[in-house]
């Protein structure tokens, strides 16, 4: 396989931008119309993802080991989309037709190398999908409670129809019945109850495709589809360092689950949670969090508001401001979760305060990242 030639060819093709995935999907759907139904109506997002994934694979084509974990996760995720082994050749053919269309020079050797590269990627994805065979490709979950709180946030209680084993800090992909084939990540905010149910905290992103439907229209009895739990960034290590947790808005969700776990295990690791919002209205789960922190002596909550004066036990400033003002955290394991902007700004402040990079764990609630 001439990997340099593949990379050069990819650079030439990718220079055509959005035209490439457009051509790819149209070719795929014309040759195999029944595959169209597996994809959402709007394809703008999906186009970016495919190009990005292909680009990542191609740039590592001579060292696929580096992307194997990503490909394995992708392969497992594709079970949720209803993708099976038989679908792979169709995608491979459409890919080759697309590459041929945009290449100034297309040779049988180039076609053969591309086919071999695609096959290797497909094998890794398929092997991972097969290995996950015992887990269902997705779960159904009934919404058993909908609690709409201030500031466009809903706390949903979801009961999976079969056990869904997740670790505190992991997220699951969710599909709403009124938004078929649009999957978004949400983070269980509790330990599973005795019937397996858990809380999801969903913030309405204005103009978003899924979160407004979840927050405004979800009703008790609705059945959601849930993907396999993923993510390792916020899952607690088994170290002994005390914990600094910094959350913005619904970024509280993973930490509520983690703190419930610490309380449940009567852990000796101390956890300080700095939970920030613009105003007190944004601190939608204050009563439950206070209750949780009273249940175990190793938990401490500092609510923070940035756009209102402090009052009572609610401190003034962003969560990271308040935390850095109060103490030196260099001997703590630090976890951060919230919007992409909040996570970026918080990380910069933490590193500037001298906290070692490998003690800082981040998860941004953007829609670009997959939860791997």
């Amino acid at each position, binding site marked *: 396989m001439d990997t340099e030639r593949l990379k050069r060819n990819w650079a030439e093709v990718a220079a055509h931008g959005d*035209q490439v995935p*457009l*051509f790819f*999907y*149209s*070719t795929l*759907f*014309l*040759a*195999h*119309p*029944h*595959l169209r139904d597996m994809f*959402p*109506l*709007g*394809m*703008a997002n999906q186009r970016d993802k495919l190009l990005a994934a292909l680009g990542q694979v191609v740039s590592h084509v001579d060292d696929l080991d580096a992307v194997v974990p990503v490909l394995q996760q992708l392969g497992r995720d594709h079970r949720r989309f209803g993708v099976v082994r*038989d*679908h*792979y*050749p*169709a995608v*491979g*053919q459409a890919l080759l*037709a697309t590459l041929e*269309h945009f290449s100034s020079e297309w040779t049988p050797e180039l076609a053969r190398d591309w086919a071999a590269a695609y096959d290797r990627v497909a094998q890794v994805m398929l092997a991972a999908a097969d290995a996950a065979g015992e887990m269902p490709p997705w779960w159904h979950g009934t919404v058993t409670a909908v609690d709409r709180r201030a500031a466009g946030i809903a706390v949903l209680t979801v009961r999976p129809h079969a056990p869904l084993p997740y670790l505190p800090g992991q997220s699951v992909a969710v599909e709403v019945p*009124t*938004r*078929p*084939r*649009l999957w978004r990540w949400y983070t269980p905010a509790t330990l599973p109850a005795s019937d397996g149910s858990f809380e999801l905290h969903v913030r309405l992103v*204005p*103009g*978003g*495709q899924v979160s*407004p439907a979840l927050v405004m*229209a979800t009703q008790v009895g609705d059945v959601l589809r849930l993907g396999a739990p993923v993510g390792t960034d916020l899952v607690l290590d088994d170290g002994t360092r005390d914990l600094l947790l910094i959350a913005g808005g619904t970024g509280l969700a993973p930490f509520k689950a983690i703190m419930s776990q610490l309380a449940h295990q009567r852990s000796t690791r101390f956890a300080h949670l700095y939970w920030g919002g613009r105003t007190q209205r944004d601190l939608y789960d204050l009563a439950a969090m206070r209750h949780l922190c009273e249940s175990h002596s190793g938990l401490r909550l500092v609510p923070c508001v940035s756009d209102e004066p402090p009052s009572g036990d609610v401190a003034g400033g962003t969560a990271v401001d308040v935390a850095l003002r109060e103490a030196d955290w260099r001997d703590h394991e630090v976890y951060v979760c919230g919007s992409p902007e909040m996570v970026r700004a918080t990380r910069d402040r933490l590193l500037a305060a001298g906290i070692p990079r490998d003690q800082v764990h981040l998860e941004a609630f953007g829609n670009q990242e997959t939860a791997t």
Partner: protein
Amino acid sequence: MTDPSVGTPPQPTHRLTPERVRSMRFGRTPIGRRGLNEEEVAQFQERVAAELAERDAAEAALRAKVEHYKRSLIQWQREHSNDPYGEPATGGPAVVQPTVEAVNILSRAQQEADAYIAQTQQYCRQLADEAHAHAEQLLAEARAQAEQMLAEPMRLAKEAASVDVADLADLERRLTWARSFIASLEAVEAQLRTAREALAYEFDRAARVPAADRRAG
């Protein structure tokens, strides 16, 4: 925006229609003397209704277009392929390669659909932003009103207090005056006492002297 599956009519029960927006009535706050500005609310309702109508129209157009493309696609597929619609393809070499022309037509259709979706999302975001701004404004007004209502009894309290203060000052003044009066009375009393004592001494002397004078005189 409701149901992306092509051709499904919207669910009327869940949808916010222009009519429902127009006919919506808001309750008044029980505490406020100055409630919502009804004209502003009506104007805002009208704008939301208009934008909803526009959104519905855009959606209907989108649905019709996609339906049309879908039918054309099925037609094309029937004419050009012996792979019956709906049955899984094995991806073998028997698959017909679509022409570049057909691919481009479908690509354009997809792009149009994407543009409609993006536009609808943009509408929603704008609506949400405006509603949010409006809500903030109402909140600010309500806060100002509440502050004013709080300020009123506070003013009265201060007024009541200021009456007391005046009384107090007056009392103080009278007290001071009374004190100085008493003090002057005491001074006069002291002078009187001295004078009386002096007088008594003089009388005493006078009472004794005549005898001596008489003796001497």
